[in-house]
C-alpha cells in the first residue's frame, strides 16, 4: 500500500465506552521471525484505530521517499537511524494506544536472532503476546524460539496472527496448514494460544475491521483478541513474599524497605526472614504524605518497622512462618542463555534472585533443548541464545521458590562479569527443602563438657575414632565392601561398626520415607549418629547412597576432622546389571518413584578423600585399597 487512506476509527475518541480514569493498561508484546511483519502490524493497528499522531503519516512518507522506497509502516516504531537504514528492528520499542475498552502499551520486539536479548527485554515486561507468522513463509526458527521463550518468561496469553494472507490469495487451506502446526508446537511446550487469526497487516484485513476477503473466518479480529486478554496483577492471594530491598535509618526509625511480590502484609503479623530464620512482628507500615496503612499487598513498594531490632539485610526474604520459601543450596533451572561466552559446567556466576545476590557454580548441564524440534541433547556448554536445563549450586543456603507456584520469587538472572547473561526459572524437583534440617527447635540448650578427652579414648582403644562415609549408587557395592572392611578391621583390633541404610531405616529412621526431604533427614540423622560414634572413639563405616552433596557436606561438618568421604564408584549400567535387590528393575517399571540414578539425581562427590572403582576392580583389590587408606590415616597402636 503506497498511499494508505485513513481507516475506520474504532476507538471513537471522546465517545469511548469506558471512562479514561478507570481504564486499565495491558502490555502486549509483538514477537515472531524477522520480516514476518511485526512492525507493520503495529503501524496498521495505529492507523486503523485512528490514533496516529498528527503529521506522523506524512513524516513516514517523507522518510520513505527520501530513501526511494515504498511506504513502510515499520518506520512508526523503528526510531533509530540504523533501523530505518537497514529495515530491521534492532531494539524493542514501546508505543501507547487505546481501544474502546482500555489502554495498551505495544512492545515491538526485534525478530532477528542477533537481537534476542532485546526481544526478551520487551517480552518479559508484557501481559500478553501476539506472535506473528508469515503465512506465505510458514513457521520459522525464531517463530519457535520466541514461542518457547514466552513460556519461560511466564507470558501465558498468546494470540497467533497468520500474517500476509494477501500473499496467498486469502486461501483458507493455507491458513489451516500453518496455524494449527504452530498451535501444536506451542501446546507441546505448555502454551495454549488463545486465538489464531488470519490477517494481512499491510492491507488491514482482520486487524481492526473484519476482512471481506476472508468470509470463512468467524473468530475475533486482532483488536478484539487483544481486548479479551486480561491484565496480569501481582498475586495478592498467594503466600506473602517480601524481599528486603534496603534498610533505612534516616531518622530514629529503622525501616525495612521493599516491594511485596505476593500476598498481604498486616501490622501485627509475625514475619519469618529467610535464610537467616529470624522472626519479628510488624510494628508499623510507614508512609509519607498519606494516611498510615494497616495493611499492604502484592505490588506495593512499602517500608515497615519491626517490634524487635533484628539484624536483617537486603536479600533476606520475609514471609509468614507457615508457607515460608524453600531453603536450599542446590536447585534446577530451565535457563535461556544470552552471554557472549558459553555457560560451562564448573563455571561460577553471580545469581540475582529477587533482591538477593549470591555466587553459584554450574554443577551440571542436564540437557540442551532445541527450540526448533524440542529435541534434547547432552552438552558441556550452553551457547548464546540456547535453552537448557541445568543444576546450580550455591555456597550457602538461599531462600527461593519454585516458579510454578511463585512466579516472581521463582526466577533468577545470572551475571557473567558485568552483564546479565541468562535467566532461569526454578524447580527443585528431586532436591530437598533444607530448612527443616538446619532449624534448631530446642531452646535453653547448655552443652555439657565431657570429662574424658579424645586423646584418652584413643589411648585406650589404640586408635582414634572416625567416620568412613561410603557414598555411591545402589548396587555399587557399598554394603559388600562395608561388611568385609568391618570384618578385616575388627580382626586387626579396631573398634569398628557398620551403619547400613536398610538397618537404620527399620529403627532410628523408621518414620522416614523416600521424598527428597525425608532422604535428607535420613542422612542428617545418620551423620549425627556417626559423628557421636566417632567422638566415642569408634570407627564407623556408614553405607548409604547419600546422593546429595549438601547432605554429605552436612555430615562432614558434624564429624569435623574425623570424616572420610569414600566414593564407591560404579557406573549406572554396571549397577543396573548387578541389581542385587531387584530395585532397578522395579524402578524402570515405574513401581518405585524417585529412585536414585533413574528418576532422582545422584551428585557424585568432587572433594572426596578416596575413590574405589568397583566396576574396574574386584572386591579384594578394593578392600586392599580401603585397608591401606585406614592404616595410613587412622593408624592403630601395636
Amino acid at each position, binding site marked *: 500500500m503506497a498511499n494508505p487512506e485513513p481507516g475506520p476509527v474504532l476507538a471513537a475518541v471522546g465517545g469511548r465506552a469506558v471512562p*479514561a480514569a478507570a481504564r486499565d493498561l495491558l502490555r502486549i508484546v509483538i514477537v515472531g521471525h524477522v520480516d514476518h511483519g511485526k512492525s507493520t502490524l503495529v503501524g496498521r493497528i495505529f492507523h486503523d484505530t485512528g490514533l496516529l499522531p498528527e503529521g506522523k503519516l506524512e513524516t513516514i512518507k517523507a522518510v520513505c521517499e527520501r530513501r526511494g522506497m515504498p511506504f513502510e509502516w515499520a518506520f512508526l516504531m523503528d526510531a533509530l537511524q540504523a533501523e530505518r537504514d537497514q529495515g530491521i528492528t534492532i531494539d524493542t520499542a*514501546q*508505543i501507547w494506544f487505546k481501544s474502546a475498552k482500555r489502554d495498551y*502499551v505495544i512492545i515491538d520486539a526485534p525478530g532477528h536472532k542477533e537481537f534476542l536479548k532485546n526481544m526478551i*527485554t520487551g517480552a518479559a515486561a508484557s501481559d500478553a503476546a501476539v506472535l506473528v507468522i508469515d503465512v506465505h513463509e510458514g513457521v520459522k526458527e525464531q517463530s519457535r524460539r520466541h514461542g518457547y521463550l514466552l513460556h519461560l518468561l511466564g507470558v501465558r496469553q498468546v494470540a497467533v496472527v497468520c500474517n500476509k494472507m494477501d500473499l496467498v490469495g486469502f486461501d483458507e487451506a493455507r491458513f489451516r496448514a500453518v496455524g494449527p502446526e504452530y498451535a501444536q508446537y506451542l501446546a507441546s511446550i505448555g502454551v495454549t494460544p488463545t486465538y489464531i487469526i488470519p490477517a494481512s497487516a499491510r492491507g488491514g484485513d482482520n486487524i481492526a475491521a473484519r476482512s471481506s476477503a476472508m468470509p470463512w473466518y468467524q473468530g475475533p479480529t486482532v483488536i478484539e483478541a487483544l481486548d479479551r486478554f486480561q491484565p496480569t496483577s501481582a498475586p495478592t492471594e498467594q503466600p506473602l513474599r517480601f524481599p528486603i530491598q*534496603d534498610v533505612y535509618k534516616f531518622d530514629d526509625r529503622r525501616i525495612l524497605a521493599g516491594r511485596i511480590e505476593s500476598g498481604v502484609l498486616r501490622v501485627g503479623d509475625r514475619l519469618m526472614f529467610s535464610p537467616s530464620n529470624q522472626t519479628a512482628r510488624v510494628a508499623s507500615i510507614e508512609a509519607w504524605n498519606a494516611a498510615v496503612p494497616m495493611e499492604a499487598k502484592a*505490588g506495593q*513498594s512499602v517500608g515497615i518497622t519491626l517490634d524487635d531490632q533484628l539484624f536483617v539485610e537486603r536479600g533476606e526474604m520475609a514471609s509468614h512462618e507457615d508457607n515460608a520459601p524453600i531453603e536450599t543450596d542446590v536447585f534446577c533451572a530451565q535457563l535461556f542463555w544470552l552471554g557472549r561466552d558459553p555457560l560451562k559446567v564448573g563455571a561460577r556466576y553471580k545469581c540475582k534472585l529477587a533482591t538477593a545476590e549470591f555466587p553459584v557454580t554450574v554443577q551440571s548441564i542436564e540437557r540442551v533443548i532445541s527450540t526448533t524440534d524440542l529435541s534434547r541433547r547432552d552438552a558441556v556448554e550452553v551457547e548464546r541464545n540456547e535453552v537448557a536445563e541445568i543444576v546450580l549450586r550455591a555456597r550457602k543456603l538461599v531462600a527461593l521458590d519454585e516458579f510454578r507456584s511463585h512466579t516472581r520469587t521463582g526466577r533468577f538472572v545470572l551475571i557473567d562479569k*558485568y552483564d*546479565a547473561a541468562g535467566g532461569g526459572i526454578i524447580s527443585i524437583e528431586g532436591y530437598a527443602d533444607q530448612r527443616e534440617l538446619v532449624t534448631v527447635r530446642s531452646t535453653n540448650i547448655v552443652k555439657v563438657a565431657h570429662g574424658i578427652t579424645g586423646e584418652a579414648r584413643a589411648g585406650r582403644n589404640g586408635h582414634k575414632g572416625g567416620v568412613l562415609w561410603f557414598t555411591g549408587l545402589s548396587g555399587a557395592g557399598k554394603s559388600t565392601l562395608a561388611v568385609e572392611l568391618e570384618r578385616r578391621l575388627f580382626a586387626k583390633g579396631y573398634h569398628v561398626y557398620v551403619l547400613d541404610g536398610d538397618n537404620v531405616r527399620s529403627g532410628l529412621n523408621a518414620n522416614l520415607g523416600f521424598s527428597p526431604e525425608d532422604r535428607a533427614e535420613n542422612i542428617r540423622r545418620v551423620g549425627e549418629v556417626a559423628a557421636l560414634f566417632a567422638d566415642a572413639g569408634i570407627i564407623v563405616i556408614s553405607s548409604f547412597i547419600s546422593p546429595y552433596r549438601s547432605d554429605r557436606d552436612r555430615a562432614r561438618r558434624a564429624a569435623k576432622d574425623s570424616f572420610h568421604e569414600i566414593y564407591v564408584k560404579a557406573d549406572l549400567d554396571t549397577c543396573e546389571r548387578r541389581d542385587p535387590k531387584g530395585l532397578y528393575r522395579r524402578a524402570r517399571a515405574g513401581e518405585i518413584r524417585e529412585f536414585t540414578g533413574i528418576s532422582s539425581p545422584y551428585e557424585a562427590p568432587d572433594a572426596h578423600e578416596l575413590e574405589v572403582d568397583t566396576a574396574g576392580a574386584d572386591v579384594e583389590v578394593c578392600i586392599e585399597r580401603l585397608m591401606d587408606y585406614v592404616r595410613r590415616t587412622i593408624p592403630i597402636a601395636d
Partner: protein
Amino acid sequence: MLSHLDNLESQSIFILREAYNRIDKIAMMWSLGKDSNVMVWLAKKAFLGHVPFPVMHIDTGKKFPEMYAFRARYAKEWGLNLILGDCPPVEQMDETLPPAARSAARKTAGLKAKIEELGFTGIIAGIRRDEEGTRAKERVFSPRGQTGEWNFRDQPPEFWDQFKTDFPPGTHVRIHPLLHWTELDIWRYVQREKIPLVELYYAKNGKRYRSLGDKDITSPIVSDAATIEEIIAELEVTKVAERSGRAMDHEAEDAFERLRADGYM
C-alpha cells in the same frame, strides 16, 4: 488489584530504591518541569520523606523567570540538597548540529562537566518512553561510556526487574524511574497527589506550555486549558506530539538521536 497510578508509583519507587542501594554516588536531575517534580515527589515517597541524594539543575541561563522562582521556593520547601551547574557557550558546541540542537547540546556539556567534577556514577533522569522514538528504546538502568555516550545499538538485556548494576570502572549509569509513564499518567498523578508545578503549564491568554525548555527554543501551544482537569481533557483527545514545541527534536531526521547518543537526556 492496585490502580494503574498505584502500579506506576510502586514501580518507580522500586527503581529509585534500587538506584540508591546499588549505585555508589547518585544525583537526580531536576529540570523544574512537571516530570522532574513528579520524580522528586516519588523520591520523597520512596525514602519516607527524605531525598537522600543531591538534586541537580543544569542551568542554561535561558530558563523562564517563573522557573527560577519555582526552584528557589521548592528547593527549600522540599528540603533538597540542590546542586547548580552552568553550561558552556553555544560556540563551543558541535558545529554540524542544527541550530536548536546545538543550543540544547549545551545542557549535555554542562551535565558532563558536573558529573566529572563531583564524581557521580549514577544520574537519575525523568525521561519517558512515550516522549520520543529513541527514548522508547531506553532501558531503566542505561549504562553510559566514559564520556557519557549512549550505545543504543548494543543495550543490555533488562528483565524481571533485575537491572544492570555491575559496571567496569569508569562507566556510569542513567536511571530512568519514569520510563514507563505517559504524559497523561504524569498529569493524573499530579492531580491525585496535588504536586505543585510551574504555572507556565496552565493556559493564559489562549496559550500554554506543554513542555518546558529554554526560552529561545521552546514555544507554547494554543490552548485554553487553565486547570489540571482541562489539561487532562485536552490531552485525552490530542494527536499532537508532546515535544512538538521543542525545536531541537525536529530539525533533521536524526538530530535528536544524535543528541541522545552523545548523552542528552
